[in-house]
């Protein structure tokens, strides 16, 4: 299977503190990868580096063989803007707090970028967006504004917005952390459906049961490095590393 995303020897510091230390990771087409770990372990920073919201200090970042950043003597050298813009079209990101555009209707939130950025025909995009909203169970809310929706609905709109760009890979940054348990379920159902359709996804999450169910591969991060990784049933049910055992036990106690 083709490697969709490859991160090699990623390093990132914030004001002298090493947040990611020599971290390598790859995602294959159709794979669902979950990243788990305690807060401050670098999960979100890793996701932000992968989505070009943060620049790595060192390492390679490669999408389908296209280098977004290339390590040269320990320093990450980024591709020129047009190349990065092309690479941005390959991935989508779903934020923890949705970040919908409040002044746009649900439909416009989903349709504007494909029309504006990808220069696709408005009619075609609209049709596709309506189909996506229908999948998300939001067809009747197309003309609503984000403030009129529940958190779960807003998150589903933001998933539709990301999918409308036809990304090759979709990142989720703790997609249910801003939602109460009842609404968490509806988002997890949507992600599960996407997994069934073989959508390539990288999910940062605290939902262990979900991560075990839905993902093909789990990465446990702590202190800016990958401590343990592999099949979810091994990592989550039979962790071997001291730190993983500790973390999972604490989660269970809650």
């Amino acid at each position, binding site marked *: 299977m083709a490697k969709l995303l490859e991160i090699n020897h990623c390093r990132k510091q914030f004001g002298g503190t090493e947040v990611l230390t020599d971290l390598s990771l790859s995602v294959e087409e159709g794979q669902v990868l979950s990243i788990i770990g305690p807060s401050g372990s670098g999960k979100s920073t890793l996701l932000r580096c992968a989505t070009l919201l943060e620049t790595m200090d060192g390492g390679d970042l490669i999408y389908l063989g296209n280098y977004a950043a290339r390590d040269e003597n320990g320093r990450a050298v980024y591709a020129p803007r047009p190349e990065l813009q092309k690479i*941005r079209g390959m991935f989508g990101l779903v934020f923890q*707090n949705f*970040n919908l*555009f409040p*002044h746009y209707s649900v439909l416009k939130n989903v349709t504007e*970028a494909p029309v504006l950025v990808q220069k696709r025909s408005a009619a075609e995009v609209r049709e596709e967006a309506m189909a996506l909203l229908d999948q998300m169970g939001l067809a009747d809310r197309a003309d609503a504004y984000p403030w009129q929706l529940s958190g779960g609905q807003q998150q589903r709109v933001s998933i539709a917005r990301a999918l409308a760009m036809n990304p090759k890979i979709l990142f989720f940054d703790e997609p249910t952390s801003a939602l109460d348990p009842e609404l968490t379920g509806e988002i997890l159902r949507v992600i599960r459906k996407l997994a069934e359709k073989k959508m390539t996804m990288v999910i940062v999450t605290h939902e262990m049961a979900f991560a075990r169910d839905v993902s093909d591969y789990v990465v446990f991060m702590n202190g800016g490095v990958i401590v343990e990784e592999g099949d979810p049933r091994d990592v989550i049910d039979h962790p071997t590393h001291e730190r993983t055992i500790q973390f999972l036990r604490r989660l269970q106690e809650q």
Partner: protein
Amino acid sequence: MTIWTMMAKMSEGLGRTCAIFFLTLLFSLPLGLLVALLRMSKNRVVSGITKAYISVLRGTPLMLQLLAVTYGPFYLFGASVAREKLVPVVIAFSLNYAAYFAEIYRGGIESMSLGQYEAAEVLGYSRLQCFMRIILPQVIKRILPSVTNEIVTLVKDTSMAFTVAYQEMFTIGKQIANSQTSFLPFVIAGVFYFVFNAAVGWVMGRAEKRLSYYR
């Protein structure tokens, strides 16, 4: 002189009062946005110069700025004083109001959550597209009440043009008050400004209402 003649004479200056008002808005609103963007520049020299600009124009009286722009060229270069004073008056007003508007814009822009920029960036919006489509519309909604405040002040500040003897409504009223030893022209002027501002309040209220479809 009857109150009616006074009103008739003063209304001859109304066109000029309105000219100051509308032209100042026309120039200072975009100029203010430009100043705000330069003020937020990462380039220290650029932001430093703009900061100084804002601090001088807010820190000195508008009246002084009117005198400086109108008569400055004469004192500095011996240039003749413009006969049509509308040009220097509008320049002084626009420069002054741009400084205030700039800080209002800046407050609005800085109040936007980073998430809005990031969402647009990930979707591939260029920086300009992000600013024009995502950020600015929301900023306008947020700053509207503060902008209304400035506009209301501008209506009253047009009277300041009397310092350079520009024949707008208040300047004429002041001349009548002096020649007739009457306070009535000031009352008339007061009523006029009040009515003008009631209209401003109504228009801006409508604008706020139009933008109230989202939160």
